[in-house]
């Protein structure tokens, strides 16, 4: 546990000493803010229309603002995840500091968990940044906070899985760009897999669609905590970290 926190702190330090963290926070905050502004603008328009026609549409902040926002955030996250994970191991391999870590009295798993927690923490910071938008929503409206919390939990779980995959890919190369590009490709693929369900209903299509990280987010966006989907994300996290550990072990046999 102590060793994990040593690695975690080192990684957090390097995120926040370099411009990476600030860049990601700013960009994510900006994009999310734009989504928020759009969603709210649309919501206000709907409200005015319903007044003009004199008939009341059912208006619900949770359904009409928060839910599409969370879905957007879940897709936007896919683009940011490679930038968080690409340097994790690739950088250590390139600069030779991997040799320091692997010859220190610390287990591989502790290194991996430390790094992955740091990546998750940075993503959590990005999410926290977006909470500013919802603060306004709570000030001027009265949405239900529970579905929102579940949505955030979903975002975090989904990112956890993708970050684990990114961490794994980062162990495969010395080149950050390659790690980043490969992770980006995998993230995109895991998003679009779901599209096959649009025209095909065979078992293979269902399996492919099931593997899409986006499908599993739908329940979270609705504010429903579905164990099935939570377990899916936890499995992705586990597999990602497991492959990272195997890959790190194989570095020793190959190098």
């Amino acid at each position, binding site marked *: 546990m102590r*060793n994990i926190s*040593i690695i975690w702190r*080192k990684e957090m*330090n*390097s995120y926040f*000493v*370099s411009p990476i963290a600030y860049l990601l926070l700013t960009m994510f905050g900006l994009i999310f803010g734009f989504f928020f502004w759009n969603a709210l603008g649309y919501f206000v328009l709907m409200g005015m229309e319903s007044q003009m026609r004199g008939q009341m549409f059912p208006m619900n902040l949770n359904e009409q603002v928060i839910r599409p926002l969370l879905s957007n955030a879940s897709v936007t996250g896919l683009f940011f995840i490679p930038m968080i994970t690409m340097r994790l191991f690739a950088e250590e391999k390139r*600069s*030779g*500091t*991997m*040799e*320091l*870590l*692997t*010859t*220190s*009295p*610390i*287990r591989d798993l502790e290194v991996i968990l430390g790094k992955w927690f740091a990546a998750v923490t940075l993503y959590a910071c990005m999410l926290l940044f977006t909470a500013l938008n919802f603060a306004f929503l709570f000030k001027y409206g009265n949405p239900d906070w529970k579905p929102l919390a579940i949505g955030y939990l979903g975002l975090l779980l989904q990112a956890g899985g993708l970050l684990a995959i990114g961490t794994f890919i980062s162990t495969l190369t010395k080149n950050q760009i390659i790690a980043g590009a490969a992770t980006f490709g995998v993230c995109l693929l895991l998003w679009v897999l779901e599209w096959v369900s649009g025209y095909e209903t065979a078992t293979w299509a269902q399996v492919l669609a099931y593997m899409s990280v986006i499908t599993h987010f739908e329940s979270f966006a609705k504010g429903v905590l579905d164990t099935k989907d939570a377990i899916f994300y936890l499995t992705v996290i586990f597999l990602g970290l497991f492959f990272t550990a195997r890959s790190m072990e194989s570095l*020793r*046999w190959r*190098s």
Partner: protein
Amino acid sequence: MITVKELTKRYARNTAVDHISFEVQKGQIVGFLGPNGAGKTTTMRMLTCFLPPTAGSATVAGFDVLEQPLEVKKRIGYLPESPPLYPEMETGEYLSFVGKLKGLSGTELGKRVDYACDRCAVADVKNKLLGKLSKGYRQRVGLAQAIIHNPDVLILDEPTAGLDPKQINETRELIKGLAGDHTIILSTHILPEVEQTCEQVIIINKGKLVATDSVHNLQNRARGAETVLVEIAGRNGSLDMGVVQSRLQQIAGISRVQFKTSHGNRSVFEVESQKGFVRGDLARSVVEAGWDLNELRPAAMSLEEIFLQLTGSEAPAEQAATKGAQ
């Protein structure tokens, strides 16, 4: 302190280290010598648990590198060929990070960081970013990082590579100074370095152990007979090589006289004797013959010659070949 038995590392196509065995006693400085690509780094990496051996065993401070790697790692300080530094960290911050990795904490950690800084003369750059340090400082921070947890064994992979002559001297002095407290293995392909710093030499070539002995013994062993270089000048006009050669050959104990070079009326001969000290007889004989004795010096075999003799004279060609292969 370190016991290596039949250690072997095979890769898919080649054998990097081939059945190497040696022992290192506590407190010794051992030079690990070999041309580039001989297997020095691979051996060191196996000792530090970075690479698992294919066959054979190695124990450090009584712990096996395969069975108890964590215990071994606690007792080893390792400086890889390029110091493992994080450019975005400050020196002090980096040393304290490494200290924590090695299991130090609290006031002990602070004390060790200060000690390592002082010892390796990096205290003045404690608040500087590692990425901005000069090569010499980087190397010394690397050394400081290796000694931070006061390890029993220090493993240094080419600690003076890429430094300027002044820094090389400083680093060697530093390593010598560390010898009392730590057992040190240092690899190098620079021979005078071994002569100057090490007590014991392990020479490997093409992954095989060629020799392991003390520097002194190795020199003696390779020298065997005493060899003396004599520079003789003729008083009037040039020298007759034949006359000189036969004259020198008559001295008791001299087994071989060989003409080396000549400049004008000065000529240099290499004289080999079996029974040891003949320099007195040699000088007298030259003067009595009416020549001038300009120079008389023992041609002690340098480690360089021993090394070439042991690893075969094709070593330079091979270096180029292995470099190409890498």
